[in-house]
C-alpha cells in the first residue's frame, strides 16, 4: 500500500505543451500597408499627412501604417455625422435602419476568419479566442440591436424616444472589434450617427469594419471611424457638436472625460476599470471553480476590465484550491497567438508588459508568494507567464490596483460577512464571481456585492441580451441588452 505523504505527490504535465505547431494561416487575411481615416463613407488621408505604425505584439513586426487624425479631421468627421443624422438617418424608417445593421452582422460572419486573424495579429490574443469569442460575439451584438431598431416603443412602453444625435465613441485595445460592436450597434439602432475612435495599438479590425460598412452601403457619414491616440480622443470629447460620449477604458481617462464634459449637455456612459473578486466557498464544485478562476483571470492575457483578479477562497479548501490552480497552470500553453493550441498569447504592448512586470515586482516586495508555471516563453514579442500570488494582504497594492494582466492575488476568508466586506473593499465595482453549490448563498452575496455583473458558478460570460457596466469607479451607464438602448435615446 502506498503511504507516501500528500505533499510529495505531484502530477507531471511536461508533455502537455509539446504539441506539434498548429498555426492559423496569415495569408487568409489581407492587411493593407497603410490605412486612412473613414469619413463620410470614404477613406481619406489625414490633413497633416501623419501616420503611425501598428505592430504585432507577438513578433514586434510592423503590420501597417495608421493615419493620425487631428482636430480638423475630427471636425470633418463630426460634420459628416451631423449631416448624415439630419439628412438621412434620423428620418429613415426604423425597419430600414435595422436592415443595415443586420447586413453588417451578416458580413462580419461571412468574414469571420479574416477578422479573427487580424484581431490576433494586431492585438496578440490567441486565435482560439478571437475565432470563438470576439468575432462571433461582435456579430451577435449587431444582430441583437438590429432587432430592437423598430421595436423601441416596446423597449420604453408608453413613452416616445428620440435619438441623441452624434455619438463620439472611444474604445480600448483589449477587445477592439467587440467593443466597436458594443458601441456602434445600439447607437445606430436608436437612430444616432457615430464617430468612433479605436485604440491606437489596435485599429485594424475597426478599419476592416469600416470597409464592411462601406460595402454594406450604409449612408455616408452614419458611421465614421477615425484613428489616433489620446489627442484625437480629446478632440472628440471636446467637440461642441457631439451629443454623447461613450468611453471604455481606464478610470484615469474616464475622470478626465468627466471633467471635460462637465457643464456641457453631453451625455456619457463610461465603462472603466475593475478589480473583481472571485469567491470560492468550501461547498463549491472545486474543479469547475478552478477552471472558472483560470478563465476569469487568464482570458485575453488578463486584459479584461471585469477580470477576476482577486480570488477569495474559504480557508477549509484553500490548500486544495491552490494546488488545483497550480496543476492547471502547468497545462496552459503560452506562446504564438496564431497557434490554435495557444491558451495565453502576447501582452498587447511593451508599455502594458512593463506595467505588469512592475506589479509582479511590487507583489514580491510586498511579501506575497509568487508562483509561475515552468513554461518557456518566446524570446521575441511581449509575453508574461501566468502568475498567481498567495499570502496576499488586503492592503497590498496587487490586491487593490488594477493590473490588467495575467496576475492573480489569492486570499483566504472564513465567513460570508468577512468575504462580502473584503470583496466590496475596493474603489471598483464592475464584476464579481461566486462559487457555491448553495442557491441561498448565491442570492445573499449577489444582493450585497457592489458590482455591476455578478456571475454565479461561472465567469466572463457575455451575451448581447445582458447588460454590462459598473458601480463606483468602474463607471456608469449600461451596455448590452435593453438597458443598452437607454444610453442612446432621449425619453420623452
Amino acid at each position, binding site marked *: 500500500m502506498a503511504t507516501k505523504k500528500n505533499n510529495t505527490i505531484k502530477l507531471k504535465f511536461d508533455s502537455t505543451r509539446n*504539441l506539434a505547431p498548429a498555426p492559423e494561416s496569415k495569408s487568409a487575411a489581407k492587411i493593407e500597408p497603410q490605412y486612412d481615416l473613414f469619413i463620410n463613407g470614404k477613406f481619406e488621408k489625414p490633413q497633416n499627412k501623419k501616420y503611425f505604425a501598428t505592430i504585432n505584439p507577438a513578433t514586434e513586426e510592423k503590420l501597417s501604417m495608421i493615419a493620425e487624425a487631428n482636430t480638423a479631421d475630427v471636425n470633418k468627421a463630426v460634420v459628416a455625422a451631423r449631416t448624415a443624422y439630419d439628412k438621412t438617418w434620423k428620418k429613415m424608417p426604423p425597419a430600414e435602419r435595422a436592415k443595415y445593421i443586420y447586413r453588417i452582422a451578416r458580413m462580419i460572419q461571412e468574414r469571420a476568419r479574416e477578422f479573427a486573424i487580424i484581431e490576433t495579429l494586431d492585438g496578440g490574443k490567441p486565435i482560439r479566442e478571437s475565432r470563438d469569442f470576439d468575432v462571433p460575439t461582435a456579430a451577435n451584438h449587431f444582430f441583437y440591436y438590429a432587432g430592437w431598431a423598430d421595436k423601441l416603443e416596446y423597449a420604453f412602453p408608453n413613452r416616445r424616444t428620440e435619438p441623441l444625435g452624434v455619438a463620439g465613441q472611444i474604445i480600448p485595445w483589449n477587445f477592439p472589434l467587440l467593443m466597436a460592436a458594443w458601441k456602434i450597434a445600439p447607437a445606430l439602432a436608436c437612430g444616432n450617427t457615430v464617430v468612433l475612435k479605436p485604440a491606437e495599438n489596435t485599429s485594424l479590425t475597426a478599419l476592416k469594419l469600416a470597409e464592411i460598412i462601406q460595402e454594406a452601403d450604409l449612408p455616408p457619414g452614419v458611421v465614421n471611424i477615425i484613428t489616433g491616440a489620446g489627442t484625437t480622443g480629446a478632440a472628440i470629447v471636446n467637440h461642441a457638436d457631439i451629443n454623447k460620449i461613450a468611453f471604455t477604458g481606464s478610470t484615469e481617462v474616464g475622470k478626465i472625460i468627466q471633467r471635460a464634459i462637465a457643464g456641457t449637455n453631453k451625455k456619457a456612459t463610461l465603462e472603466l476599470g475593475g478589480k473583481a473578486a472571485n469567491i470560492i466557498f468550501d461547498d463549491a464544485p472545486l474543479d*469547475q471553480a478552478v477552471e472558472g478562476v483560470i478563465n476569469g483571470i487568464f482570458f485575453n492575457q488578463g486584459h479584461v476590465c471585469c477580470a477576476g483578479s482577486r480570488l477569495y477562497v474559504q480557508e477549509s479548501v484553500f490548500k486544495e484550491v491552490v494546488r488545483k490552480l497550480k496543476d492547471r497552470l502547468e497545462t496552459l500553453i503560452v506562446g504564438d497567438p496564431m497557434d490554435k493550441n495557444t491558451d495565453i498569447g502576447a501582452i498587447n504592448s511593451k508599455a502594458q508588459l512593463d506595467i505588469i512586470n512592475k506589479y509582479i515586482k511590487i507583489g514580491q516586495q510586498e511579501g506575497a508568494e509568487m508562483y509561475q508555471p515552468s513554461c518557456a516563453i518566446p524570446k521575441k514579442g511581449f509575453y508574461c507567464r501566468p502568475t498567481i500570488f498567495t499570502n496576499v494582504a488586503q492592503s497590498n497594492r496587487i490586491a487593490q490596483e488594477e493590473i490588467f494582466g495575467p496576475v492573480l492575488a489569492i486570499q483566504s476568508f472564513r465567513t460570508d460577512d468577512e468575504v462580502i466586506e473584503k470583496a466590496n473593499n475596493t474603489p471598483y465595482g464592475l464584476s464579481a464571481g461566486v462559487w457555491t453549490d448553495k442557491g441561498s448563498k448565491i442570492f445573499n452575496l449577489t444582493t450585497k456585492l457592489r458590482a455591476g455583473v455578478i456571475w454565479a458558478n461561472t465567469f466572463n460570460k457575455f451575451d448581447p441580451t445582458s447588460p454590462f457596466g459598473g458601480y463606483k469607479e468602474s463607471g456608469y451607464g449600461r451596455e448590452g441588452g435593453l438597458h443598452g438602448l437607454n444610453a442612446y435615446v432621449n425619453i420623452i
Partner: protein
Amino acid sequence: MILTKTIPDFSLSPHVDQVGIEERASRFTKRSIKNETKLNGLMLALNMIDLTTLEGKDTEGKVKQLCYKAQHLHDSYPGLPTVAAICVYPSMVKTAKTALGNSGIKVASVATAFPSGQAPRDIKIRDTKYAVQNGADEVDMVISRGKFLEGEYNFVFDEIAAIKEACGEARLKVILETGELVTYDKVRKASDIAMYAGADFIKTSTGKISPAATMPVTLVMLEAIRDFYYKTGKKIAMKPAGGISKSKLALHYLVMLNETLGEGWMNNEWFRFGASSLANDILMQLMKLRTGVYQSPNYFSID
C-alpha cells in the same frame, strides 16, 4: 486492500457543476493535434484499446479471430503496436488465453452477471473466480446500480471489496454504468466508492446502455482519480468504454487525460479504451498519414 483508515463519508463526495464540466470537456476538443503529435497519439490510442466482443452469439471461432487480429492489426503497416487487451465473457477466457499465448496482450473478462449485475453476491463471486481461474488477467465487474441509486452505498462498497478479493492477482475494473447513474454528482460518488473499495480501474460503461462513455463523464472520473491520488498516493486507471469509434474522438480523450492526470497515465497500464470499431478507424488514419490518401475500408480486416 481496503484503505480502511481513509474511507470518507461518501455522501460528502464533491459536487460537480454540469455546465462547468461540459464546458471544460469541450475545451479539450479545441486542441489541434497535428503531424508527429497526431501520429504518436494514434499509436498510443491503438495500444490502449481493449478489443472487445461481448455478444450472446460469440463463439470460440470468433474469439480466436479477434485474438489473431489483436496481434496483427494491419500487417502491411510494419511497426504497429498491439492492442492492450482482449475483452470477452468468462466462458471465452480460456480460448482467448490460449490464442494470445505469450503475445503480452492481456485477457480481460467481464464478470459479476454482466451487464445488469442482477445476481446474488455469491454467484458474482463465483463468476469472478471462474474467470480468474481460466486465466483472466483483468476482471471487468459491474456495480449494483439499483442498490447505488437506492442510496445503499455500503452494499455497493462491500460488493466491490468482495469481488476485489475474489480477483486475487487480477486487476479489477469497476464499471459504473454511468448511463444509468444519469447525473455527474452520482458518477463522482460512485467513482469515489469504487476507488476506496479497491478498484484498480474505474470504467464508464458496459457498452449495452446508451449513453455510454462521454467526455464530460470521463472527465468527472479522471478528476476523482486525481483527488484520490493526492489523498492516498495510489494511482487508479481509467477506462472509458462504448461510443468511442473515431480516431479524432480518441485523440480528444488523450488530450483530456494528458491535461488532467499528466504523463504518468499516458500508457496502457493506466488508461484503456473499451472499443471494437475504434482500432480500424485508427488504422485508416495511420495509413492516411503515411500515404497521404484515405483508403477504402475494404483494405482493413473487420475482425
